[in-house]
């Protein structure tokens, strides 16, 4: 509603500009090391062969997908309850990133599935909940961008994000139930042998790298939004100075 509220997040700008280089560099380094370990050091799986290396992207992406949604819903709650302007911007900035991670998880999973099960898709409970999560993100993004006034989209989106987080465990639970009710005939079961240490390390490094990568992009997106808002406020105050018209009174009885 009031653009002036967006105009003074000076502290955030200072803090974020100090953090940004560290996050960026950390993300690049961790993902670089992680990829190197994953592609060249980790041994091929005795069952799955080289295809197992997809895991090092797939699993972090899957975790980030739900983590980001939780963060987005938290930010939305703060935005709705305390009307904190930065929370709105954080939620808006996080959503496309979360959708990206979800898509990455789906695509890598699909590619993997084609190699391992000979099919791009099965209606497995876990796969299905990721698909539904992806639709939650898409709905949020579509809603936020469907209004001309940016403020309206943000508020509608915040309501939706909260409704979505309430629903997320319900979906997870119901999908699990659904899938056990009609036991699929010949579907590969996920989460086979416990992971070996030689794979655990690269995986942990990749996960950390993904988190820092997310933090970097989030900060960049929030900063751009704030700078854009600042420019708009400057333009508007210019207009308002023009409009310092002599206030008149109309009184009637």
């Amino acid at each position, binding site marked *: 509603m*009031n653009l002036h509220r967006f105009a003074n997040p000076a502290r955030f700008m200072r803090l974020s500009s100090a953090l940004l280089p560290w996050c960026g560099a950390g993300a690049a380094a961790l993902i670089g090391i992680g990829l190197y370990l994953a592609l060249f050091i980790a041994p091929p799986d005795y069952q799955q062969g080289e295809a197992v290396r997809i895991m090092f992207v797939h699993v972090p992406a899957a975790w980030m997908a739900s983590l980001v949604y939780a963060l987005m819903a938290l930010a939305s709650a703060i935005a709705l309850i305390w009307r904190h302007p930065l929370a709105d911007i954080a939620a808006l900035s996080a959503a496309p990133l979360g959708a990206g991670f979800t898509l990455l998880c789906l695509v890598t999973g699909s590619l993997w599935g084609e190699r391992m099960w000979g099919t791009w898709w099965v209606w497995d409970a876990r796969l299905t909940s990721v698909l539904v999560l992806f639709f939650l993100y898409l709905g949020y993004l579509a809603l936020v961008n469907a209004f001309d006034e940016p403020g309206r989209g943000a508020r509608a989106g915040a309501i939706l994000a909260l409704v979505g987080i309430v629903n997320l465990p319900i979906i997870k639970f119901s999908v699990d139930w659904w899938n056990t009710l009609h036991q699929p005939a010949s579907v590969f079961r996920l989460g086979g042998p416990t992971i070996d240490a030689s794979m655990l390390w690269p995986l942990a490094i990749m996960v950390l790298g993904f988190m820092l990568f997310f933090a970097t992009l989030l900060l960049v997106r929030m900063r751009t939004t704030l700078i854009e808002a600042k420019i708009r406020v400057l333009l*508007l105050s210019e*207009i308002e100075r023009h*409009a310092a*018209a*002599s*206030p008149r*009174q*109309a009184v*009637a009885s």
Partner: protein
Amino acid sequence: MPAGRHTMLPAAGFAGIDLACRRGERLVFAGLSFSLAAGGALVLTGPNGSGKSSLLRLMAGLGRPEAGVLSWDGAPVGEDPPAHRARLHFIGHQEAVKPLLSVAENLAFWAGMRGGGDVGQALARFRLAAFAGSPCRLLSAGQRRRLALARLLASPAPLWLLDEPATGLDSDALDDLQAAIAAQREAGGFVVLSTHTELPMAGAATLCLSDFAARPA
């Protein structure tokens, strides 16, 4: 809102102080103040797009002012929205008439939502009694407008906010409208209306919105 602000509000009546309104990116008007005592009337004029409808919507509580306060009997209107809603009638450009319901059904619904009232008399006062049973789909443009205005009489409210109420009315209906406004003011009510035509009213203040334009339209 700083406490100091409240002391400026007039102790009685309907008033607005230093109001500004933004539609989308544009500041439509700014620095607008008015005050009305019981029985007062305020006529909003100004060229197309100067913000008459926008101001009336603010007064109704549909949307918040970008700056400034609206007050009723000294208390900011935003502090108790339900109380404000209960005391006003708002008739906008759109008539909120359902084509499928009959004239009487339409009016009875709106009156009933506010606790009920005398539908038959309100229809008669706007010369719609003969149409009471016919579906609103069949009404001519002016008849629809009269039906919208009949809501004012079907259930009482101290504050009337009317956006170009005279649109499409024939001269008889215009007289009816003016009589209704006069009766409302006599009873101590408040009337704010926008118009492009002459609507003579005794002792009404006029506010020309173009005097408060934030930038030339």
